[in-house]
């Protein structure tokens, strides 16, 4: 088996890298794929909490590279899907505990037995980011409809290119269709025009995400959730399916009238 490694990164913090990683990973596992999620945010780990596996951590990625345990010992099996694994970050160390070469070798080894290796990158463009991208075949950039986040995403695209990671794809997270309609938020088209890369998916702003991350149960597991569906669709697109973007609720009649008479 020859798997694919994908780094999920953003530049800016707080745009939802970790939540997206946990959900896409879960959604790919729901499709029957063998998946490893790597938390590359050493010293500020969160992926374990978001996916609900924090209490199972015995060894972490630093233990693996410093050869205190074998790789298989550090991989934590998910509660729900037996093909989904987490390689947690160390919390009491910092980014310098791992070198790019070590990360590369580690991922190379994992690619032999898994379909997807998703790497959750830390925010920033320093050592931790460079580690996270060093073993990746492809990149997914997460951004939100804010000028600052799009700026940082653009910067990241440039950095990835200079490291030979071409054609990254973008996920636009936390979009609010009501605000876009009122013209108070950047539209998807605005962002794609600036970034000039492929759109992998759009995820709406959703209060339920907060509940699900706090509980450690990815929202992709919820059959009826629109947000869950958006995330599952992203996984299917990664798998090569061609799916149209979901429509984000119908424009309200009042909004249309307001726009017609020019008071919106």
């Amino acid at each position: 088996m020859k798997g694919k490694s994908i780094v999920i990164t953003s530049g800016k913090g707080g745009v939802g890298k970790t939540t997206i990683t946990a959900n896409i990973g879960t959604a790919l596992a729901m499709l029957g794929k063998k998946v490893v999620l790597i938390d590359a945010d050493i010293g500020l780990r969160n992926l374990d909490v978001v996916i609900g596996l924090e209490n199972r951590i015995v060894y972490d990625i630093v233990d693996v590279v410093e050869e205190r345990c074998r790789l298989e010992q550090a991989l934590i099996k998910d509660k729900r899907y037996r093909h989904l694994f987490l390689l947690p970050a160390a919390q009491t160390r910092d980014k310098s505990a791992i070198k790019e070469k070590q990360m590369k070798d580690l991922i190379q080894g994992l690619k032999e037995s898994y379909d997807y290796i998703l790497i959750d990158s830390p925010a920033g463009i320093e050592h931790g980011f460079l580690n996270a991208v060093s073993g990746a075949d492809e990149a997914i950039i997460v951004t939100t409809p804010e000028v600052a986040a799009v700026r940082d995403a653009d910067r990241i695209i440039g950095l990835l290119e200079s490291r030979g990671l071409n054609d990254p794809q973008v996920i636009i997270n936390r979009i609010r269709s009501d605000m876009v309609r009122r013209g108070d938020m950047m539209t998807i088209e605005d962002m794609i025009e600036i970034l000039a890369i492929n759109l992998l998916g759009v995820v709406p702003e959703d209060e339920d995400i907060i509940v699900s991350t706090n509980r450690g149960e990815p929202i992709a597991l919820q059959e009826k959730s629109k947000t869950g569906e958006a995330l599952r669709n992203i996984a299917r697109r990664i798998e090569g399916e061609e799916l149209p973007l979901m429509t984000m609720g119908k424009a309200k009649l009042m909004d249309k009238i307001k726009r017609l008479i020019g008071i919106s």
Partner: protein
Amino acid sequence: MENKEIVIKGTLDRLKIYSKPDISLQEMKAFLRRKFATGGFFGDIDYELALLDVGWQEEEKRELNRVLREVNPRLSLSFFSEDDDIPEGKLPRLKAVPMIVKKSFRSGQKVVAPGDIVIVGDINPGAEVVAGGDVLVFGRVGGGLLHAGASGENDAVIVALSLKPTQLRIGTIISRAPDQGEQREGGPEIARIKGKNIVIEKF
């Protein structure tokens, strides 16, 4: 997981490393590198380290010391022979002076000591406490990892005014918090090994 051909034991004044007599220099070097590197499990504490002399040549002893200093400049290795060793089974528990820490531990903070650890403060999720002996917390344990008897003592205990850690380890046994929020009353509790499990009781 553990290389059972090499065993570390805490004694009165130092950590002793025992190995089978026909161990190779390569194996021992690898073991020292793995166990005692800075930042590793045994790497962050100060203690004397003694290795059972299974007939090492002077040359080899220097080589082992060099390897150890390479991974952890604070440590050096002395050698002891089986004759001056305390008989098996009568090894006293490592009686280092208890470490008393008056502060709370936040995520990413870690304390390691060869003997007992007394903490006057709280333990937050993401913090780690690793003691060769008992762990006593005069405060609230709201998460984090507490490890008592870390050099393999299964009779160590963990006591806290409120005990809700992410993970507990005593000696060689690991237990984790239940996945759904647990509904235990507050109040002082003690964790110890009973049979093959870690049990938490009112203190």
